[in-house]
């Protein structure tokens, strides 16, 4: 019930239009079932001379036309024209409504996902999320646009035809409806049972695709170990399994269609034989017999169809719930108190503690301060809390205890949007959008001149690389364009951060995939503009950190060492130790001189 309510809510603003579609279905069905009536009257009362049991108006009309058979022909065509019109309206309206709902739903889900907090995205199962956004929306669209309308059609047909049949002959009606419930029940039961086979075929296909995908991306590994035969065998196994599952499914369907055909034709045959008998013994007219013969054909197939749709309805309801689950996730409020103080970059951490889960401590009692334009370097193992520290600055997470102030204002009172516009973060594995390189770099900055663009790209040591692409700055990135190496991606992301001229810059291990020479070039460029922004540098390369105004060494969420390079080198501790490991060559170079 809850899921029906969800679906009903999704239909907001489109319900009236949908009513129009349902109404069209009813009218089209009415027109459809009146066709056999015209034929019956033609056969019984115009060609034959049975007395007509109909309202006076129709009786007079029939008597007046005598034996002019073109008149029922015209009536037939007119009715069909009406039916055609309603059928068109039904198709058109249903499409409009369902596409409208799907569009709104897509926009809503997309927008909602964009506004879910950082934590949600870090933990999200992207495959599942994708599935919900695409196939679940599609299931609902198909349900409203096709299946529900189809179901309405079947339902109206059953109701109208049973009505007409009853008015013609009650005994024949009973005979006509004898096998129908079995057909219906059979369809429902079958499609519930067969779900497993469908799922198994899907799973087998997914496994096959995985092997294929891995072979395509790992082709060099396969070749280098000369394991082609092994892979072909592995693929053959999956391919065979998939083939067998698909065949099994088709076989089940073959059984279903033939069995339900048998039932359907049985119903038709029973009506035909019984009708012939009753007409022969003079209990019903030829026209009535033909009427039942025609109607039974109109009744059997929709009933069979209904069983199938009913089982599909369950899917749509599940999809609705799955989408609602996303929409129920609390959004991040980007503009809470409209607090938008000027930001220059003086940052003070005072006893800051933080954990992803309650009770867990990733950062503990962190205190330090940085002046505007200074550079802070952070060194530490994976998991020591380096990234968490900088994430707090962009308000991607909220600190649990202590205080962080930016230019004297408590960080968690500043609007998220405002703070993020002033903090530029470059992560280790930056994401580029399927846009041109220019668009990717200017995503956050808006319009810039070519000079500005080229200047930041030179600083990020990526200008020459970009020019080497076929279309330079207008080259598309991603599947449809060039593939960009990890190092190039990092450099483009650096340019993207620099161009905003934010007062706070964070490089979260963002030079890791760049070769040493380029790394140096970028660091030199950054140094020249260093005083323009408070900069946070995270790296494993000690050499990259040595020039910072303040170096923090993190271990298990605590600051274990702090100071400048010279100060830290004078202490025995992790900094000097790491430096030693990474720079044993230094002495040798000096010796070589």
């Amino acid at each position, binding site marked *: 019930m809850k899921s029906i309510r969800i679906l009903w809510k999704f239909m907001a603003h489109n319900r009236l239009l949908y009513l129009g579609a349902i109404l069209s279905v009813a009218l089209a069905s009415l027109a459809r079932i009146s066709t056999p009536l015209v034929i019956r009257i033609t*056969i019984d009362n115009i060609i034959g001379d049975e007395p007509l049991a109909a309202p006076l108006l129709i009786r007079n009309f029939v008597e007046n036309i005598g034996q002019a*058979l073109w008149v*029922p*022909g015209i009536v*037939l*065509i007119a009715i069909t024209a009406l039916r055609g019109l309603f059928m*068109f309206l039904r*198709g058109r309206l249903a*499409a409009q409504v369902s596409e409208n709902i799907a*569009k709104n739903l*897509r*926009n809503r889900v*997309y927008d909602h996902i*964009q506004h879910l907090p950082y934590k949600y*995205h870090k933990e999200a199962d992207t495959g599942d999320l994708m599935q919900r*956004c695409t196939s679940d929306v599609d299931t609902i669209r198909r349900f409203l*646009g096709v299946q529900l309308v189809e179901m309405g059609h079947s339902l109206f047909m059953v109701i109208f035809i049973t009505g007409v049949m009853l008015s013609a002959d009650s005994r024949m009606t009973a005979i006509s409806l004898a096998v129908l419930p079995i057909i219906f029940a059979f369809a429902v039961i079958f499609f519930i049972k067969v779900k497993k086979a469908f799922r198994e075929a899907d799973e087998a296909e997914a496994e096959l695709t995985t092997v294929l*995908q*891995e*072979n*395509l991306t790992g082709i060099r*590994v396969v*070749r*280098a*170990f*000369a*394991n082609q035969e092994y*892979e072909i065998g592995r693929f053959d196994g999956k*391919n065979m399994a998939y*083939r067998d599952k*698909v*065949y099994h499914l088709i076989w089940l369907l*073959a059984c279903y269609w*033939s069995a339900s055909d048998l039932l359907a*034709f049985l119903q038709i*045959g029973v009506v035909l*034989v019984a009708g*012939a*008998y009753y007409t*022969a013994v003079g209990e019903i007219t030829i026209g009535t017999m*033909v009427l039942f013969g025609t109607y039974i054909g109109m009744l059997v197939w929709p009933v069979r169809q209904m069983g199938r749709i009913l089982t599909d309805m369950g899917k749509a309801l599940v999809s609705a719930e799955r989408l609602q689950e996303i929409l129920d996730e609390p959004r991040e409020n980007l503009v809470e108190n409209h607090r938008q103080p000027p930001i220059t970059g003086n940052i003070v951490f005072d006893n800051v503690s933080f954990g992803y889960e309650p009770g867990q401590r990733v950062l503990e009692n962190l205190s330090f301060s940085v002046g505007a334009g200074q550079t802070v370097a952070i060194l530490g193992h*994976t998991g020591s809390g380096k990234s968490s520290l900088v994430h707090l600055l*962009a308000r*991607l997470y909220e600190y649990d205890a202590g205080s962080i102030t930016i230019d004297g204002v408590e960080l968690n009172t500043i609007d998220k949007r405002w703070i993020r516009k002033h903090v530029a973060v470059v*992560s280790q594995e930056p*994401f580029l959008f*399927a846009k041109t390189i220019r668009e990717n770099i200017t995503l*956050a900055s808006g319009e810039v001149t070519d000079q500005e663009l080229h200047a930041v790209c030179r600083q990020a040591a990526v200008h020459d690389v970009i020019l080497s692409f076929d279309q330079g700055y207008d080259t598309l990135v991603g*599947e449809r364009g*060039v593939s960009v190496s990890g190092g190039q991606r990092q450099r483009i992301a650096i340019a993207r951060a620099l161009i905003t001229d934010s007062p706070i810059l964070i490089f979260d*291990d963002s030079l890791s*995939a760049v070769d*040493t020479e380029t790394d140096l070039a970028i660091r*030199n460029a950054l140094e020249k503009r260093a005083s323009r922004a408070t900069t946070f540098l995270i790296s*494993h*390369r000690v*050499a990259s950190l040595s020039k910072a105004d303040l170096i923090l060494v993190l271990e298990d969420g605590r600051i274990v060492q702090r100071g400048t390079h010279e100060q830290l080198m004078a202490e025995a501790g992790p900094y000097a130790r790491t430096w030693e*490991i990474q720079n044993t060559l*230094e002495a040798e170079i000096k010796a*070589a001189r």
Partner: protein
Amino acid sequence: MQQAVLQEEVHEEKIDLKLWRQILQLARPYKRYIIYAIVSTVVMAGGDALFPYMTKVAIDNFVVPQRTEGLGWFAAAFALLIAVQSFTVYMFINMAGKVESGVTYTIRQAGFEHLHTLSFSFYDKRASGWLLARLTSDVNRLGEIVSWSLIDLLWGGAAMVFYAIVMFSMNWRLALLTICVIPILALISVYFQKQILRAYRSVRRMNSRITGAFSEGIMGATTTKILSREEENLGEFETLTSGLKASSVRAATFSALFLPIVLMLGNIATALTLWVGGNGVIAGTVTYGVLVAFVSYAIQFFDPVREIARIFAELQMAHAAAERVMGLLNTDPEIQDRPDVEGSVPPLVGGVEFEHVSFAYNPQEPVLSDFNLKVEPGQTVALVGETGSGKSTIVNLVCRFYEPTEGRILIDGVDYRDRPLAWLQGSLGYVLQSPHLFSGTIRENIRYGNLKASDEEVERAAELVNAHEFISKLSQGYDTEVGEGGGLLSTGQKQLISFARAILADPRIFVLDEATSSIDTETEMLIQEAIRTILTGRTSFIIAHRLSTVRSADVILVIRDGKVQEKGSHEELMAAGGYYYRLYTNQFLED
């Protein structure tokens, strides 16, 4: 930097018979099932034609003369017809299913095996998503065409013939009257089916763009957040969804128009039949039963016509899929064994020599020219240079992933093109910058280096490269799943596993594209130790970023613009004070 080949070419030219002959060739193993399917389809069409005729028999033999004798036989005949019809329906679906699943299987397998013979230059030009689609959706479509569409086509043809036979045998005048609308209907059907298909194709295209946008929205959500671009993204997304809605409604409108028009035509035929046939009944030249049967046929005749129109429209689309799949199957591998390679060759020792080697990925941009290098078995060669200098090319040539465009490469003194590919590649160890693991357990991934290795050998390999310790700490140990692409492990762990895999292969020639990705110092030391273990006693080529590996190499090559700029041991190069010297003094002494 390859331009991905991704355009979904739209083909609407005439059906290419040679192509389809080739496809039917692939369907050969399923000939028996195809014949069964054809037989049952024809029988089924006959049954479909008989049902309205049964109504006619009932009316003319029992209803009009008001007679009941023989009705029992009639009922029995009807029952038999139903039984036969149900059985043929079962057979037809079952056999078509066998053909579909079988043909799909065969083509997919052939495609997969062919992929493994193609050279890397082929892969360089095509995105993996493109190739994936060829072997999944395109092959599926092809399988559908070969089974269902062709059989439906046959059904349509047979049904039309049978209907015509029954109708003409009952009353040729009425038959002509019913059939006269068919050509118009056929024309309209073909037109509409084409429009509908085209409209749905654009819907599909829009749909895949939306899927792409969703994927970007989800994968890039954190980036969007950092850049504060939520509103702009939504704006762009809304343009896409509005576009999809417009094209979907357009496609649905075409579909919604098509059926009413067909029905109108059908009812014109019915009305004509009723008029002329009814007059015939009054005049006594037509029986009641024939009139009723003709009313049914007038409507039913349209099914096969519509069906055939639909399949013709689909065939044109399928043609594009068929071309793409067959194009893949017909691509000749650039690197393959020469017909005259010796079958039995001595085991590989590991001497490598480049003799005046030139190479270019495409003719305009030479990467290497007149490159010479001699490496003794067991030596370690470190390649140093900027990105794009040609380091990777040298390594690719050693592995024979590419072959020189000029000059030759000798392995143990013989041009490697005179030897089978498997001889070299079976003795190769190759570790990539970003190690590629397959989904499965850690054990399976290490064993990939030597499929015959025992569990003990796998663990010994892991111990040798310092991977054993972290593996044992995992809750499932060696049976831990690594996830797709090794996603459940850290970069450092993936590297250690790929080292274990390489050492298990016990290669004579070892190639390492060293990673620059950042790993904490402890893991870094484990990795360096592992590398040292692997290098001993093997000819090795290393694209080096780590100082320790460079220093311990026997020969260091500084590559610039496809040429060896400096060559020698670490001490020699340091003493020479050239580019190499500057590179490393720069890194550590920045002033």
